[in-house]
């Protein structure tokens, strides 16, 4: 017979008390993500205003909450759901449609609450049917390419994204030219500008060096499944900007700056020679740009 001190561990575990069968287990508090934080309070307030029939106030509350930065997708769904509902109750079909278009991108099966008045329910069904028939609007990304930057300073990039579906995010990918892998940084919404997103490349990623160097980058809008919806540049054809040493104004000054930095260069140059230099410089300068004539014919 097996002595008590040698009882296998599995037997001990099998005999251990099971919480579910004994005293009631403590209930986990299920707080929806959309209700966490200040936006959650706005949602609660808007819901209370809707329940009380204060639809205008609910719209103001929700629009204020939509202007907050860093909203989660769950919060956006709730905000647009309530906003669409409030606009429906107010009879603003166009505005309700805008809100539900955004909501239905993420929740195509969203149904109105059962107690919704028939008039509102019919209006919602019509909106949903119209949205179903429409093609999905393409995501549109606009950006102004980055200009040369001074080393040791952060670089900020702002993009405009239209028709951004819920669950989608713009991301900046960047690397020093000549290296293999791209780093990434997620854009954040610009407060009070629904279509603008901003990202900052930290200064330590762009160190100041004695010589100019190039940074390659591209911007991509991808959905939750990492499918590319829109972009500017890609890993094989990236955009570029230069990082110049501190104190150097621009690319054109690379060579000339050394001349200008040395005051002795100008010593001994008289007024007549300076005038001649200016004349020659202007003569050369006039060749820098030109005019093209385009002749258009119909074939």
């Amino acid at each position: 017979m097996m002595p008590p001190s040698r009882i296998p561990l599995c037997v001990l575990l099998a005999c251990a008390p099971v919480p579910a069968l004994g005293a009631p287990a403590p209930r986990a508090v299920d707080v929806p993500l959309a209700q966490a934080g200040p936006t959650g309070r706005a949602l609660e307030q808007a819901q209370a205003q809707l329940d009380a029939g204060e639809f205008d106030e609910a719209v103001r509350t929700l629009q204020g909450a939509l202007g907050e930065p860093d909203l989660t997708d769950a919060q956006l769904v709730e905000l647009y759901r309530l906003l669409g509902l409030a606009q429906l109750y107010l009879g603003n079909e166009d505005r309700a449609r805008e809100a539900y278009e955004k909501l239905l991108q993420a929740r195509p099966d969203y149904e109105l609450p059962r107690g919704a008045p028939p008039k509102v329910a019919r209006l919602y069904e019509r909106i949903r049917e119209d949205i179903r028939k429409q093609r999905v609007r393409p995501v549109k990304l606009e950006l102004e390419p980055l200009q040369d930057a001074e080393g040791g300073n952060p670089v900020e990039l702002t993009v405009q994204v239209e028709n951004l579906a819920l669950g989608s995010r713009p991301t900046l990918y960047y690397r020093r030219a000549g290296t293999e892998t791209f780093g990434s940084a997620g854009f954040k919404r610009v407060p009070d500008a629904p279509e603008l997103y901003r990202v900052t490349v930290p200064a330590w990623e762009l160190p100041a060096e004695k010589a100019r160097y190039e940074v390659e980058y591209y911007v991509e809008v991808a959905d939750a499944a990492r499918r590319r919806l829109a972009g500017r540049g890609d890993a094989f054809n990236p955009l570029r900007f230069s990082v110049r040493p501190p104190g150097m104004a621009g690319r054109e000054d690379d060579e000339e700056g050394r001349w200008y930095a040395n005051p002795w260069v100008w010593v001994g140059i008289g007024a007549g020679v300076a005038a001649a230099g200016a004349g020659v410089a202007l003569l050369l300068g006039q060749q820098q740009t030109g005019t093209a004539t385009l002749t258009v014919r119909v074939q």
Partner: protein
Amino acid sequence: MSARWNALLLWLACAACGPGPDSGSVQGLEILLSRAYVDRLGSFQVSILAGADGLDREAVEKTCVTSQAVTYVQQVDGSGQKVKARTFEASVAGGQQELKLAGIPFGREYLFVVEALSSDEPAVLLGSGSARVLTFQGDLRPVPLTVGALAPAPACDPRIR
């Protein structure tokens, strides 16, 4: 001061006040439009793209330049402002029209893209054509550029802002 010295200074002053900085010429373009869309034509949009070596012309012409990752060469518009693209109202009723582009930097190979935009609001892209042009060449014969028809029009906003 001697007369000879005065003459020298006058010559220098004249040299310095010579023609403006945009007096050079660039190889011209002869743009051929398809008759298929002339009735709907509202304007031309001309953009100049840098890095012509790395650009696939066929790909560029398939859709709007705005939806592609390209680097624009800034031009100068009629008011002296630097712009990414120039837009010209189409008036080819007589079968021909002249356009002038200013402020094109010399010395590199560029891809000139001409997009035919409709007169609709918002405008749609009716056709697109491109040509590689090396500016400041000695031989200034016009480069042919055919703006082929795109049917159906791609779903993109062609207006470069």
